[in-house]
């Protein structure tokens, strides 16, 4: 469909979602453009691997395109997309996706070597956590989800989520002490 020059760029997301639901490819491309930083960052924190994170993010958007007609209320789109991203990650973990080998490409990928220090160190610290703890920590800190929301999204019992968050937080505080100590001294 053809629109005036910057119509899609200026449209609110609910309009784009409505258009995408009716099969509008350009509207969906605009949604991908707007939401990709969020989903790619989330996936990066979940798996700590830039290549795999982008592959999983693509899977999320492809799944969103295939299912967007089933989304009845356009205002629910962000939560719906987030749940889809979390499910994509959890499914990947469960079936140990063939894309898992993509992490071996890290060493040869110059874009990853150029990642600023904090992101790299954060991913390295997250990498020391067991999978479930890492998922809970990412959803809690990166997505600012509550314990109950994390329990609902991951299917883990609430008590387990709380314990994972406590354990993960302590571990991250130790691993990232260089980054958080100056602020700690100031408080």
């Amino acid at each position, binding site marked *: 469909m053809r629109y005036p020059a910057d119509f899609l760029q200026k449209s609110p997301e609910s309009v784009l979602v409505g258009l995408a639901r009716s099969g509008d490819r350009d509207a969906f491309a605009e949604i991908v453009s707007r939401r990709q*930083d969020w989903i790619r*960052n989330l996936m990066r924190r979940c798996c700590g691997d830039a290549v795999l994170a*982008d592959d999983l993010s693509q899977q999320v958007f492809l799944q969103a395109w295939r299912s967007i007609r089933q989304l009845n209320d356009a205002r629910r789109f962000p939560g719906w997309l987030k749940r889809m991203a979390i499910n994509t990650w959890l499914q990947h973990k469960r079936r140990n996706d063939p894309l898992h080998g993509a992490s071996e490409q890290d060493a040869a990928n110059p874009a990853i070597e150029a990642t600023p220090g*904090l992101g790299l160190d954060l991913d390295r610290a997250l990498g020391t956590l067991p999978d479930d703890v890492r998922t809970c920590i990412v959803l809690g800190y990166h997505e600012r989800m509550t314990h109950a929301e994390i329990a609902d999204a991951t299917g883990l019992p609430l008590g387990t989520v709380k314990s994972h968050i406590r354990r993960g937080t302590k571990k991250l505080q130790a691993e990232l002490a260089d980054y958080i100590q100056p602020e700690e001294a100031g408080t």
Partner: protein
Amino acid sequence: MSSDFDPRLQALFAEARKAFDREAFTRDVMAQIDAGRRRTVVVWAVAATVTVVVLIFLAAPVLTALRLVTELLPVSVVEIQSDWMKQLLAPVNSVAALIAVLALGIRKFYRRIFG
């Protein structure tokens, strides 16, 4: 937000968010969507061609089957003696109504699971 969350770590997570090359990623996603659309069109075209060929070869048996189905749809599910009651309940007391209810049930179930 619970006190289990350390605000300093929250700040680190926020700081570590980065902006990506949006154009290349969007292009990749849309290319995969377009490829998927093309595959769907090809699959439907093949299915339609096969259906037409099958219908041409099996025209007579298919027509017979359709006639049998057409005759089956209005058959009452529960036998009712009273004529006027039978007429009144005909829209819901038939194989067609049973199939419609099943289809609606499956649709509702599907939407609840995947919607």
